[in-house]
């Protein structure tokens, strides 16, 4: 019985320890970000490997999500004779919810896991401690550029996802199912508000970008420096950041759209 309690306590303590280390790392990262103005190339390289290389999966999923939305919603809406509302429904779903959330989930799988594995392997092969020996701060040189790169890439990816999805829905709704093109766009424009819908989506994607890259960088930096440790850290990145994104999405949605 006492053993069981002690184990519970140990788990609790290690959980809070990790939480504390995570926040200390976030502070160090934020302090490291201003110094990157002097070395923009480091950030550019990270935006490339985090953002540009994620572009394909984001665009392809965006098109298919938009097309599926178009098909599904059309079949439901046509029963009510409201297929003219296809445009606004697709646009609102994408801009408010699916754009930021699905992008963040894909981003966690595509870029977050890669970040964790890269940093974890750097740690396992003692590149990070090697840098410290040369008086180069690995947080500033390795972690902060990745953090900033993710922060920049995520909202851009989410915007591309939403736009491509709207065109995917347009292709299916207007091109294949015969919804009127004019009502698709004009209803969309009259229902979607820039400040309330588009900007809130952008804010969501900014928050998700910070959370996913923070978790990825932290897990990599905190990984047990063995091959097994790195693989576990990579798994944890994907699981934890996906859960964090979904949980935070509910909180943000409740804050933005829940209370009038």
């Amino acid at each position, binding site marked *: 019985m006492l053993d069981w309690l002690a184990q519970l306590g140990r788990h609790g303590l290690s959980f809070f320890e990790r939480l504390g280390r995570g926040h200390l790392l976030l502070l160090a990262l934020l302090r490291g970000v201003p110094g990157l103005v002097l070395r923009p190339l480091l950030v*550019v390289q990270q*935006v490339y490997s985090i953002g540009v290389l994620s572009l394909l999966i984001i665009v392809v999923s965006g098109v298919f999500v938009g097309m599926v939305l178009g098909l599904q919603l059309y079949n439901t809406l046509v029963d009510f004779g409201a297929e003219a509302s296809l445009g606004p429904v697709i646009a609102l779903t994408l*801009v408010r919810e699916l754009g930021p959330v699905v992008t963040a989930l894909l981003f966690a799988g595509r870029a977050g896991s890669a970040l964790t594995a890269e940093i974890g392997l750097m740690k396992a092969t003692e590149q990070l401690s090697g840098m410290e020996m040369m008086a180069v701060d690995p947080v500033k040189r390795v972690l902060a550029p990745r953090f900033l790169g993710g922060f920049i890439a995520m909202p851009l990816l989410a915007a591309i996802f939403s*736009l491509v999805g709207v065109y995917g829905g347009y292709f299916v709704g207007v091109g294949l199912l015969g919804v009127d093109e004019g009502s698709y766009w004009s209803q969309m424009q*009259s229902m979607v508000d820039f400040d309330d819908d588009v900007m809130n989506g952008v804010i969501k994607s900014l928050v998700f970008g910070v959370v996913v890259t923070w978790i990825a960088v932290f897990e990599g930096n905190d990984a047990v420096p063995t091959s097994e440790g790195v693989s576990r850290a990579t798994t944890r990145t994907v699981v934890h950041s996906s859960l964090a994104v979904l949980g935070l999405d509910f909180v943000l949605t409740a804050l933005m759209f829940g209370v009038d």
Partner: protein
Amino acid sequence: MMQVRTVEIWVGVFVAAGLAALFMLAMQVSNLTVVGDDKGYTVTARFENVSGLKVRSPVTVAGVRVGRVTAIEFDPQTFQAVVFMRIGAGFDQLPLDTSAAVLTSGLVGEKYVGLEPGGDMDVLKDGGEIKLTQSTLVLEQMIGKFLFDKAETGKE
């Protein structure tokens, strides 16, 4: 150095594409372009019933959107709803005796305010009031009235 340059070009393309997507979302998808709400003038109208009308609902003349509802208030003295409408600056030629009606687009669509221009030489100014109004048709009342009429005629 070729490698670095390629990376830089790709990142440039990516950032430009992302910003362009955001711009397109603003222009094509959302209503940023429809009516400049900042410029323009506000008019009010009193209605007996505005059920279903919301803030941000469109205001149209001849089916063309000219502005939007900015606020809906209740006047405790007259028990009427006061609707504030922001009309775009380009539509400042509305006559003083313009009438307003709360209409529905389609059978179950959204409510909007339709303006019907009159023939007065003077035009509505900022803060002006539209005197002639027609309330929204409440479907339940209509059905109730219809059933009542049927019952009445059936009795005779």
